[in-house]
C-alpha cells in the first residue's frame, strides 16, 4: 500500500501540472482581427526625355503642344481600391530649352470623363542650363476617389509661345521628366 500511495503522489502531481494548472491566461487572441499593416510603396511612373527639336513639326514649324496617353487598370484594381489610403505623385522636371512649358496631366475614367487634372509650370532656360521644377500632387479623400476611378492618363506638354525664343530643329536643350508615385497602403486582416 505504501508503494501505491507513493506512486499516486507524483502521478497526480504530473496530472495536476499537466491538466489543472496549465492554461493560457491573460491573452486575447481576438486581437488578431485588428491586425493592419501600413506599407508605403514607391514606384516609378512616367519618364520622358525630349530635345527641343521634338517641339518642331516636319516642316520646321513650332508645335503648340505634344501629348501622349496610357490606358491602365492599376488604379481601378480591387487591391488599390480596398487598400490605398493616400497617394502622392512626385514629378521632377529639368528644362534646358529656352522656352517655358506647361505640363498638364489629365485623369480620365472608363467613360472618358475627366476625373482630375493638374498642371505644372516650367520656366524657360535662356542659357540652356537645366532648371529644375518639382511638383507633388497629393491624392486624399475626393482626389483619391478620382484616382481610384482613373483608367486613362494623358500627359500634355504645352509650349508657352510668348516665352523665350522660337524653337527650330537646331534649338539647344531638352526637357526631362521623371516621376514616381508614393502609395500609402493600409492592409487589414
Amino acid at each position, binding site marked *: 500500500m505504501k508503494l501505491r500511495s507513493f506512486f499516486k503522489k507524483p502521478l497526480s502531481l504530473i496530472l495536476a*501540472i499537466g491538466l489543472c494548472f496549465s492554461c493560457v491566461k491573460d*491573452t486575447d487572441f481576438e486581437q488578431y482581427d*485588428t491586425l493592419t499593416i501600413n506599407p508605403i510603396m514607391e*514606384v516609378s511612373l*512616367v*519618364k520622358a526625355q525630349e530635345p527641343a527639336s521634338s517641339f518642331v513639326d516636319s516642316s520646321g514649324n513650332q508645335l503648340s503642344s505634344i501629348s*501622349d496617353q496610357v490606358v491602365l487598370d492599376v488604379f481601378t484594381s480591387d487591391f488599390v481600391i480596398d487598400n490605398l489610403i493616400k497617394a502622392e505623385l512626385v514629378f521632377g522636371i529639368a528644362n534646358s530649352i529656352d522656352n517655358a512649358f506647361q505640363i498638364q496631366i489629365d485623369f480620365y475614367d472608363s467613360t472618358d470623363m475627366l476625373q482630375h487634372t493638374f498642371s505644372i509650370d516650367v520656366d524657360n532656360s535662356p542659357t540652356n542650363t537645366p532648371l529644375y521644377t518639382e511638383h507633388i500632387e497629393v491624392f486624399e479623400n475626393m482626389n483619391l476617389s478620382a484616382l481610384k476611378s482613373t483608367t486613362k492618363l494623358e500627359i500634355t506638354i504645352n509650349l508657352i509661345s510668348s516665352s523665350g525664343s522660337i524653337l527650330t530643329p537646331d534649338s539647344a536643350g531638352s526637357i526631362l521628366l521623371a*516621376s514616381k508615385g508614393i502609395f500609402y497602403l493600409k492592409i487589414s486582416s
Partner: protein
Amino acid sequence: MKWLLFLGVFMSLHSQNKQLLYGFKEVPQQLHLNPGGQVDYRGYSGVPLLSHIHLNAGITGFSAFDIFADDGRDFNQKIREVSYSMDSKDFVVVNQQLDIFSAGFSVNTSLEDKLFVSFGMYQESDIFSYFPKDYAVLANEGNHNNLNRLFDLGQLSVSAEVLSVFHLGVNKKINSKWTLGVRGKVYSSIAQVSSTDNIGSFITIPGANNNLKHVFDLDMKLQTSGISSLREPNASNELEVLKKRLLFGGNLGVGIDLGFTHQPAPEWTIDASLQDIGFINYSKDIKTYILDGYLEYDGIQSVFPQIVSGQTAQDYWDEVQKDFEDLVEIDSTTTSYTKWRPIELNSSVSYNFGRKLDKECNCLDQSDPAFQNRVGAHLFAMKRPNHLQWALSLFYYRRFYKNLQLKTTYTVDEFSFTNFGLGISAALGPVQFYIMADNLLEYQNLAKSQSVSLQLGFNYIFKNNEN
C-alpha cells in the same frame, strides 16, 4: 479532408528533442531514439495508438504572450516590435508523433546469445519555417525609406510533411560494456510541401532616367507531393487515399538509425545515436511551382506620338505589364525529387550511483541490484535547412522502486534557458504508463512558453524471469 483536419489538430500543438525519454531504460520507446539502448526486459507490446503520443511545438524569438497579451497595448505595435526583434534565423517548429503499434521481444540466437528485436509503425507530422524577416519589413514599411536596401526574398524557407514510418530494429548486448543497435525504416510520405532553396531579391535604387529603378530577381520554388490530387474538385474517397498512403501507398523512402551504449565501468554510461539517416523519393502526385524571372523597371517611357509615329506610351505600358506578368508567372512541373530526412543526433554521458542496501544484512539488495541514481548531460542536435538545431540538458534519474522511476531535466536550447522537465514511468503489474513534459515552469501560462514538449504512452512489459 477530415483526416487532414484531424492531423492538423495534432500538429497544432511541438522541438523534436526528447531529452526526458532518451536513455529512460524502463520505457521501451527509448529504443526509437537509440536503437542501441539498454534493454532489461524480455519483451513489450505497446498499447495500439496509445504507446507513444508525442507533441512538440517551439518558436524562437517570441512567445504568443508577447503579442496576444491582453495588456491594452496596440496589437500592431506589438507585432512590429516582435517582428523587428526577430531575424531570419528565428524559426517555428511543430512536430507530432503517434505510435500506431510497437512491440519487441528477445530472441535466443544460441544458449548464451540474445538479440532484442523491436518493430512498429508510427505516424509523424513536421512543420518547420524560418522567419522571413525581410518580407515582414517590406510588408510593414514598404520600400519607402528603404532605397538601396536589398530585400532578401530567399529568406522564405518553409516545409511541412505528414508521413508514416514502419521500422524494425535489432539490439544486441555484446558484453557487459557494449550494447549496439540498428533500426531500418521505410517511410511513406502522405503529403509534403516545401519551399526551402529559394534565391531572390527586390531592391529599389535611384534610376538613371527616372527617380527610381526597381530590380526584381526571383528564383523560387515550391515543391508539393500528395497534395494536388486531393485538391482536384472530383477527388473522391480522400479518406481511402490517405489510408492507403499511410500503409506504404505514399512516396516511399528508406533510412536507418544507429546507436550504442558503452559502459566502461558500471558507474559510467556513454551512449549516442543517429536517427533518420535516410531519404524519401517523391515521384507520385508531384507538383512543383517555379517562380523564375528577372526584371528591371524604371517607369513608362512617354514618347509623344506626334514625334515618333507608331509607338506610344501605351505600347511601353503594355510591354511593362507583360514584363510583370512574365516575372510573376508560375510554371509548374511534375518532375520527381528526393529529399534527405532531417538527421538527428542524441548523445549522453552519465554517472550511476547508490545501490539499494538490504537493511537487515547491510548488504546489497539482491532483488534490485540496479543503481538507484543517475546524473548526466545530454546533447541533442538536428539538421535544419539552414542551421543545426540543438539542445543541451542536464538530467537526474531516480529509481524509487522497480515500478517507479523519475527523471528530471534542465535544458538550454534555442527556445529558452529555463526549461525544466519531469518524466515518470510507473508500472502496475505488467502495465506501464509514462508521461513526460518539459517547460514545466511555463505550464501556468502556456502562452508565455516558447516551446512545449509532451510524451505519454502505455506499454505491456514482459519482464525478465529473474526480475
